[in-house]
């Protein structure tokens, strides 16, 4: 009979974290930015069917980097959690904070239980408020911690470099076109510093738009609307003082 090797708890945890981080790093990064009228999600995604961003509830959106089947599972769990809570209490009682908490507990328990393999995912849960000050963005790394973010956040393989880039350039009250342009710029920088072009067809973009009259604030942006916004972003940075010229552009 063989005796199992002794592995120190520190070592075991470090190994699991390393495993999860490597899995996440294989996926492409995505960014979530606040802008004047809401929160925008931007990522590179060649697939049109497998979304990285989706709606959880009226004001709450979800973004994930890493392994698709694992974050999809969490996404559906989140939708069920939110819908059940809204059904039992009221629609107003579903909050991003509550959801982020449940996700953190779930990820944390899976991460530290020896029987299960840690999830290779990093999530963002965002809630758009009545005003930009009330917006909430939570980043949830693989180990179950919660990071309360402001302004901009990046997750996925190249996240550290991208969020450094965003932190320097993101400012409050950007228009959607400006925020989108900044997001695309940040995503198109490679690890070695070189830049590459991301065509509009490979971009997945969604917003939580607080000006939307419906209860459900989440909507996807694609096709011609996206092309128009990307163009507007280019034009606006050329003449910075233009101000809020894109507000007509983002109407469906």
């Amino acid at each position, binding site marked *: 009979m063989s005796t199992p090797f002794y592995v120190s708890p520190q070592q075991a945890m470090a190994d699991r974290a390393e495993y999860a981080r490597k899995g996440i790093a294989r996926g492409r990064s995505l960014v979530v930015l606040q802008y004047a009228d809401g929160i925008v999600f931007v990522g590179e995604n060649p697939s049109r069917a497998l979304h990285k961003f989706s709606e959880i509830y009226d004001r709450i959106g979800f973004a994930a980097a890493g392994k698709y089947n694992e974050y999809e599972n969490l996404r559906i769990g989140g939708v069920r959690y939110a819908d059940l809570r809204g059904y039992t*209490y009221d629609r107003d009682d579903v909050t991003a904070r509550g959801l982020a908490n449940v996700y953190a507990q779930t990820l944390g328990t899976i991460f530290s239980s020896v029987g299960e393999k840690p999830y290779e995912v990093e999530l963002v849960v965002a809630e758009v408020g009545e005003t930009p000050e009330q917006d909430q963005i939570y980043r949830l790394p693989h180990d179950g911690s919660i990071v309360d973010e402001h302004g901009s956040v990046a997750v996925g393989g190249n996240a550290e470099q991208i969020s450094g880039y965003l932190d320097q350039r993101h400012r409050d009250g950007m228009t959607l076109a400006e925020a989108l342009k900044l997001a695309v710029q940040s995503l198109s920088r490679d690890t070695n510093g070189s830049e590459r072009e991301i065509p509009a067809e490979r971009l997945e973009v969604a917003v939580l738009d607080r000006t939307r009259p419906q209860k459900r604030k989440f909507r996807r942006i694609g096709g011609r609307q996206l092309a128009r916004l990307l163009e507007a972003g280019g034009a606006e940075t050329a003449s910075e003082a233009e101000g809020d010229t894109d507000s007509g552009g983002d109407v469906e």
Partner: protein
Amino acid sequence: MEANTHGTGRLPAAFLTPGSSSFMDFLSEHQPELLPGKRSLPPVKGVIEAPHGTTIVAVTFPGGVVLAGDRRATMGNVIAQRDIEKVFPADEYSAVGIAGTAGLAVEMVKLFQLELEHFEKVEGAQLSLEGKANRLSTMIRSNLGMAMQGLAVVPLFAGYDVDREKGRIFSYDVTGGRSEEQGYAATGSGSIFARGAMKKLFRDDLNEAEATTLVVQALYDAADDDSATGGPDVARRIYPIVTVITEDGYRRLTEDEASGIARSVLERRLEQPDGPRASLL
């Protein structure tokens, strides 16, 4: 009660089990006691007194469908509520109007709305109009036990079929039987009178404004002959709820619009109490 009361606070296994996109299926596995149909009613003699909603009417027109309801809820001979709302949006392209036990109906609508929204979020696509109509059928069927004790809920479902590019109406019976109606339909205690009025006034080339006038006329006729249906209440400014669903989605007429139609109908009825007359041949 909610998700994180189970043990460690992580999502319970039922939440992370892949499978159904239906919220009702999820509920029946995870918390069946929350489903309206799963409740058992103690045996009671006679009819249970609870507020009942009355008349709902719907009319299609080229490019869409109109669904409308009066505002009265009755309990026996008493008017339980004068301004009840019985027509609700189900999702962006459909609406549901409910006659029958008001309390159960409102709960059923809430669950139905959630069912459609849940499917849309999980699947990333909307159910077909037929699919929505079938879901509603299932919900009514699960209420059969209550219906046998006098707590029936009988909805009218109307929606814009994005694939066929036209408005469609589905009516139901207490057992969940579903049938598609051509042109116009009505449900509730005043439905016989409303249907008679619509039969004489309906044409298949109505425009939106005419269709909304037609439903208000039909509701007026229902209120005229059925004591449980409320007519336009000018003194309290309570007018029928009129909703229009077209390719632009669901829209409820504002109070001004609804009162405008109701008042013009009322105006003409002052001269001609029985309303517009159809020709004999």
